[in-house]
């Protein structure tokens, strides 16, 4: 009987013989040109023969680049916050973790002294103003609250509930079905209007209400009229995270 071992021995001999005859493995440029169809027929035949002798390199040609991003739940999915963390570590890696902004805005000792002097003048002016008893207008903050629907497998669905509240800030209540048992929580707000979700904010400062819901405060200026958004709530315990629910809503167009 022809066995696997027979095939392996014959194949090993062929590989050794072919490598000796054909020479070094193809270079990166040759492989890329082969993949791009940029080689002459003779060169293409040579690279093809080499790829059969170097299967680890052939695998690069065999496995195509993914045409799109993995969806949540698929292998290799990264959430916007994962990408955000990666971006932060990338900045450290390339040594770009210094303060942002134009060079003239970056901190210098003399700027510190200047800022202290300006601060002293402003505080003095405020004190003078307060003593003179002049009342300043206070910006009114509209504060309305709306309860969203728990979506996903355990909830009512993933429909986008229209926002009925409006104000500079709105409070959105995100109910949970079971009493949560996590040391902490993390909440993401994603803008899902486009083909790819965009992270609006990501916070671990999550306030749980007495009736087992999370209260999320959203600045109206972070929302786009007509936009679709989704909260994703995670329970955090040590290094483990578990998605607890999603809450979808849309902003009225006008």
């Amino acid at each position, binding site marked *: 009987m*022809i066995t696997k071992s027979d095939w392996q021995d014959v194949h090993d001999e062929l590989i050794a013989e072919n490598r000796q005859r054909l020479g070094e493995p193809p270079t990166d440029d040759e492989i890329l040109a082969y993949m791009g169809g940029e080689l002459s027929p003779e060169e293409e035949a040579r690279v*093809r023969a080499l790829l059969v002798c170097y299967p680890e390199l052939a*695998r*690069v040609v*065999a496995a195509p*680049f993914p045409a799109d991003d993995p969806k949540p739940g698929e292998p*290799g*999915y*990264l959430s916007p916050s994962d990408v955000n963390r990666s971006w932060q570590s990338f900045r450290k890696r*390339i040594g770009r973790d210094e303060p942002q902004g134009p060079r003239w805005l970056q901190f210098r000792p003399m700027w510190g002294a200047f800022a202290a002097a300006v601060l002293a003048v402003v505080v003095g002016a405020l004190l003078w103003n307060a003593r003179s008893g002049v009342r300043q207008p206070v910006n009114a903050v509209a504060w309305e609250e709306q309860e969203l629907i728990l979506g996903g497998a355990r909830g009512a669905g993933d429909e986008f509930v229209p926002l009925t509240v409006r104000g500079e800030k709105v409070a959105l209540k995100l109910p949970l079905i079971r009493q949560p048992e996590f040391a902490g929580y993390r909440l993401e707000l994603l803008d899902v209007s486009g083909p790819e979700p965009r992270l609006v904010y990501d916070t671990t400062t999550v306030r749980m209400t007495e009736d087992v819901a999370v209260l999320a405060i959203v600045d109206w200026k972070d929302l786009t009229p007509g936009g679709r958004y989704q909260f994703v709530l995670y329970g955090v315990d040590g290094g483990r995270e578990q998605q607890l629910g999603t809450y979808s809503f849309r902003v009225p167009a006008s």
Partner: protein
Amino acid sequence: MNRDARFETMYRKYFARVYRFFYFEHHITDDEAQDLAQETFVRVYESFDSYRGEAEWGFLKVTATRVLLNWIRKAHAAKRSGEVVEIDDPEIFFDLPAPEGPDAADRQLADLRRAALAEAFAELSPAQQECLRLSILGFKYNEIASILKISLDAVRSRLRDAKRYLRTRLGGKS
């Protein structure tokens, strides 16, 4: 949009896909895949000035492929030998008639089998040999088609003809 802002936009848009390329398509561990994906972006960042913003995905693909090839060459530098993965293809494992002569030793029997197999294999066309060798290595039909740049039907017919010839030539039963 300035250079850094353009780069950040590209990073956020494509990082997940580049990571998936390493992690999912090439079965590299999570940490290493993250590292290789970042390494890809480091290289892109370094040559970002010559980058004109067109076909950004194509630019990233080429860079990621170079990073992957570099990683593979390092990983395989110490073990360059034919790797035969476990396959279970009854069509290529079959009984050969016993050699003539009384009581041949097992080793001699094996040598004879391999010699017969190598001889028959060498009689296949180069195109059939390439297909069969990649199949023995565990590549799927569509992967063989990508590597050899031939159609899926061509892969099927070459493999079918090669196996049929080997069975006839070696006088085995599948």
